């Protein structure tokens, strides 16, 4: 039962590491050699508008991979391709060693890819707890008849998953808003609930689309800590889009830089920082 193993760790986590600042975790000695997801030669266009052209990079198991670039560089499109929402016209995506066919997002979810959105995409009419429980839906098996009775196996199942959801609520420190309808929550908390929903699915690959957009410094620090903890404790691979460069450089193991739909740099934060093409993209043309 992975459920109980994971939960025991999570429950202990917030107290076990009081300094919690996180920055040292992304230390250079981390080594990743198992490729989880490989993107090669992906091109995507809508009508005449080219969103991505011939992009290739890989994401290794266990790393925090940042995707950066100026506005309109194709970062969100890239995430949409990874979780099956857009279908690239060219190129292949290999996930866990299998070349992926054209698929719908729910297949990607079933294979362990979860994500959060740039503009929060929570279920506004449902409570925090229910939102997080939706992350467990794929793991719940009881059929219509048991559900109708809400008794025996269906109820036991509900309780097992409720326990898991409660551990995530503990981990993200949102106990107090457990039963609040999320539409009424402030922005920062909504972002946190959205992360919780993605975590509830116990993903192997977690895609975060600007998890810290519009947050103040304190909220950003909290969110950074959560991301590092998730990566550390659950071993979740994370692909992250973020505009705040200092955070990207601190958090990520490797960075890929997109501009106008093309890849212009790929490497460790230090390599990327020194890359003239990146400096050009960010400073030269005056966007971003």
């Amino acid at each position: 039962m992975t459920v109980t193993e994971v939960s025991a760790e999570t429950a202990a986590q917030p107290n076990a590491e009081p300094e919690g600042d996180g920055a040292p975790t992304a230390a250079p000695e981390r080594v990743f050699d198992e490729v989880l997801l490989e993107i090669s030669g992906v091109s995507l266009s809508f009508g005449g508008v080219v969103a991505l052209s011939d992009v290739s990079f890989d994401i290794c198991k266990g790393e925090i991979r940042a995707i950066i670039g100026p506005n309109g560089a194709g970062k969100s499109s890239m995430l949409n391709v990874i979780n099956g929402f857009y279908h690239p016209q060219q190129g292949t995506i290999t996930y866990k060693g299998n070349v992926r066919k054209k698929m719908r997002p729910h297949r990607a979810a079933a294979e362990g890819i979860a994500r959060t959105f740039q503009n929060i995409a929570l279920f506004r009419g449902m409570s925090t707890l229910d939102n997080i429980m939706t992350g467990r839906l794929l793991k719940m098996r009881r059929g219509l008849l048991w559900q109708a009775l809400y008794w025996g196996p269906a109820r036991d199942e509900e309780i097992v998953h409720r326990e898991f959801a409660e551990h995530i609520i503990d981990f993200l420190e949102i106990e107090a808003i457990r039963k609040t309808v999320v539409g009424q929550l402030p922005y920062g908390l909504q972002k946190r609930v959205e992360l919780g929903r993605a975590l509830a699915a116990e993903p192997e690959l977690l895609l975060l689309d600007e998890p810290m957009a519009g947050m103040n410094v304190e909220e950003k620090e909290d969110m950074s800590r959560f991301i590092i903890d998730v990566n550390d404790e659950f071993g979740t691979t994370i692909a992250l889009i973020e505009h705040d460069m200092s955070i990207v450089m601190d958090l990520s193991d490797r960075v890929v830089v997109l501009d106008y739909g093309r890849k212009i740099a790929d490497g460790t934060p230090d390599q990327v920082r020194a890359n003239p093409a990146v400096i050009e993209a960010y400073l030269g043309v005056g966007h971003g």
Partner: protein
Amino acid sequence: MEFISFLNLVFVAPFVDMVSFPIFFAEVVIAGVLTGIMYSLVALGFVLIFKASGVFNFAQGAMVLFAALTLVGLMELGVPVLAALLGAVAVMTVLAFAVERFMLRHLINQDDIILFMATIGLTFLIQGFGEMVWGSNVKALDIGIPSESFEVGGILLNEFDLFAAGSGAVLVAVLAVFFHYTRIGRALRAVADDHQAAMAVGIPLKTIWVTVWSVAGFVGLVAGIMWGAKSGVQFSLSLIALKALPVLILGGFTSVPGAIVGGLIIGVGEKIAEIYWGPLVGGAIENWFAYMLALVFLLFRPQGLFGERIIERV
């Protein structure tokens, strides 16, 4: 043997009928076209509102009824035709103000389904109010359009029907000009494109909504006059107006030409189906044929004939 004769009845005999009696067939088609124009007029009002305010206006049918009832009611009070027409237009404008003030304004940012259901409520409100003020019995509407019948090449035509077709065409042309060449038309298209962006460049959203609901009311009045003069003004008008929905599925919800072509297809299609295939199954298939046609159509071209494919964003 029975199976063969069944195939014959369904797939051969109706077409043989059409070819052997071309004049009758032509009359059926013309009758269909004229009904289709009515559907188009109702669908047009619907498209206007949907484009400019994103509201799926179920009440368009009730507005047709209400406009026609108002006109008849005023005329019964002894108001001359022209003044009664102006009066009806004025009443529809007041209605548009009321809808914006008491309904739309409070429902900004609500889910589409909530707005849709609100217009169902509006339908009943308008209906109840109209019938309370003007009574619920069938009223004859005569605004002095001639209705002599005459023959062209053996086909029986009616002056009134031609007049209806003509005014439908004129109305569409006027609306097209209004949309493309006037300042307010441009603003309407901007609002349809993106509410927030339009507001940001200083287009007053509320004025736009009132305008578009007034125009839809005016279109409703024209549709109501046509229907009413043909079959009297009564409650059933608003049920017939429900057929605008399948028309829109065919034409695409945002397309003015779509509303017109869709209306014609539905009008002609259901007439032909009723006359040539209806007797096989006991008749009265006009009630549902349009909806079923739309449903089948959905399987093949969900965005409609003239609608655009939507790129979803996250």
